[in-house]
């Protein structure tokens, strides 16, 4: 057991350009780049398809197609095509980020109470105002749920960067394997898991801060309000949305 942790607890490994903090920084850097690229593609696309309610089949097709791609094969192919560069690494990881974000954004926007959308349009909001003032704020729990799932995937997989000679926590896995230093490999695996958990916790806090209290579960509720969780929710623990139940049984 102590052998497993010896690398991790050796103070010498906690400084310098190949130390643990530097590797964590690199790992986060690749992950954030990939998430940003994935979000730039997935969120507008999902929002547009959800808003117009046209092309829902695209969401399923794109998400499933991307999920089916073998990550390592994709990365190898991209590096062969583009050379050893940050771009192929980012693209390969972004491909992982897209499906949960796309599905979350699409279903979030699509599941916004149609009465609210109809009222917004009827009161004279323009289409972009409906999207930004009504649909996206109401879809935030599902969009952020998608982001959390994407972040988890990307962080867990960003170790592949080391496979094509980049840094990040993957270095410990690859270098450890090369030198049969299992304690170093264990350190890499543990750090990846801890990092994923830490980011997940951070995003959960962000979600609490930016999602309207009106969309949160709990709190005082009238008997006519019920909580529903859309089936397509990528993360069912914290993405409950309240929909007012029209059938009035208020005694």
């Amino acid at each position: 057991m102590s052998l497993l942790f010896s690398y991790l607890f050796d103070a010498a490994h906690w400084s310098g350009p190949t130390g643990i903090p530097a590797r964590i920084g690199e790992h986060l850097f690749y992950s954030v780049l990939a998430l940003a690229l994935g979000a730039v593609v997935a969120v507008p696309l999902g929002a547009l398809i959800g808003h117009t309610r046209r092309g829902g089949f695209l969401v399923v097709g794109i998400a499933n197609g991307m999920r089916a791609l073998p990550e390592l094969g994709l990365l190898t192919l991209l590096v062969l095509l583009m050379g050893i560069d940050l771009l192929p690494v980012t693209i390969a990881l972004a491909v992982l980020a897209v499906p949960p974000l796309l599905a979350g954004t699409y279903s979030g926007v699509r599941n916004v109470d149609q009465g609210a959308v109809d009222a917004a349009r009827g009161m004279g909001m323009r289409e972009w105002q409906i999207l930004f003032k009504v649909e996206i704020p109401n879809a935030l729990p599902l969009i952020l749920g998608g982001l959390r799932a994407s972040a988890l995937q990307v962080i867990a997989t960003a170790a592949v960067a080391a496979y094509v000679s980049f840094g990040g926590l993957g270095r410990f896995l690859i270098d450890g394997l090369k030198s049969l230093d299992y304690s170093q490999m264990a350190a890499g695996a543990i750090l990846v898991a801890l990092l994923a958990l830490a980011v997940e916790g951070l995003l959960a806090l962000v979600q609490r801060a930016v999602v309207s209290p009106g969309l949160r579960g709990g709190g005082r509720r009238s008997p006519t309000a019920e909580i529903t969780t859309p089936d397509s929710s990528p993360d069912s623990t914290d993405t409950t949305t309240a929909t007012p139940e029209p059938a009035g049984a208020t005694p």
Partner: protein
Amino acid sequence: MDGGIDVIEFRSVTKRFADGTVAVDGLDLVVESGKITVFVGPSGCGKTTSLRMINRMIEPTEGTITVDGRDVMAGHPADLRRGIGYVIQQAGLFPHKTIRDNIATVPLLLGWSKPKARARAEELMQTVGLGPEMAGRYPAQLSGGQQQRVGVARALAADPPVLLMDEPFSAVDPVVRESLQDELLRLQGELGKTIVFVTHDIDEAVKLGDKVAVFRTGGHLAQYAEPAELLARPADDFVDGFVGRDRGYRTLGFLSDEVPLGTITPVHVGESATGGWTLVVDEEDKPLGWVTGAGPVAEADVLPGGTLHPVASGSLRSALDAALSSPSGQGVAVDDEGRLAGSISADAVLAALAAAREAA
């Protein structure tokens, strides 16, 4: 809104949906300004479609619709809609916004400052009977009836001259619905908006409408008349069937009463009754209820009375109700202040009805 101009006009309006359904067929209709016009009819007869063509949520296939003389198809639909209040059945409140911010939506769209829009929202909450403590709540924390009040307040926020309401009260229970209807009438008395109100409930139509348009399946207008006229002279069998068998009784609600009042000698609590049914009144002569038998009257002996007939504002219907619901068989009529004005017998109501029929 000076009563004279016809603000909403349908001219040979037809709506054919992409799948070939003709929802509205050659509709000609003039909605009078400052009045409540109700579209009523069975499900699928094109009421919602007709309503939504007014604010261009649905575009007509043929014909023109003008609001205050302007073709709704001219200009940007969003600009048209900002000048027309819109209330729908599910209320359609924004779940992520507080009640205050929901109501402030249109003023903010129109570019009002935030403080001004919010002050206006709070003023409207009072107008529709919502306590100020609700301002910071979210829609999910409100009952269905409260949500509908917010919906109405939100539609009124920018003070539009026209209000479109699509079955706004049909999702709440009957008691709440009654009070929402009463409040709409009270509000309308103050505001004098041009209201188009859709319902499939003939009772609601007759209660709220200054004018009622009865639609028949296929998007045809079957009859367009004042409620009393509709009940008294249905244009055809369809309208007759739709307004229902008890229309004779409903008609009474539109006949002003000419019922002669009988005299009645009430007693106060503590005084002695002489036997039979005796009406008890308080110090201000307001009816409390009835006692039977002779002897001193104690408060505990008073039986609740029936409905009261207001002499000034009542109809033959309220007179008949008062006579039939009183335990003594004698209805009680009251003046504006609620003080005893006299008694009413069912026979007198029926005689007045016969007289009214003859006159008609």
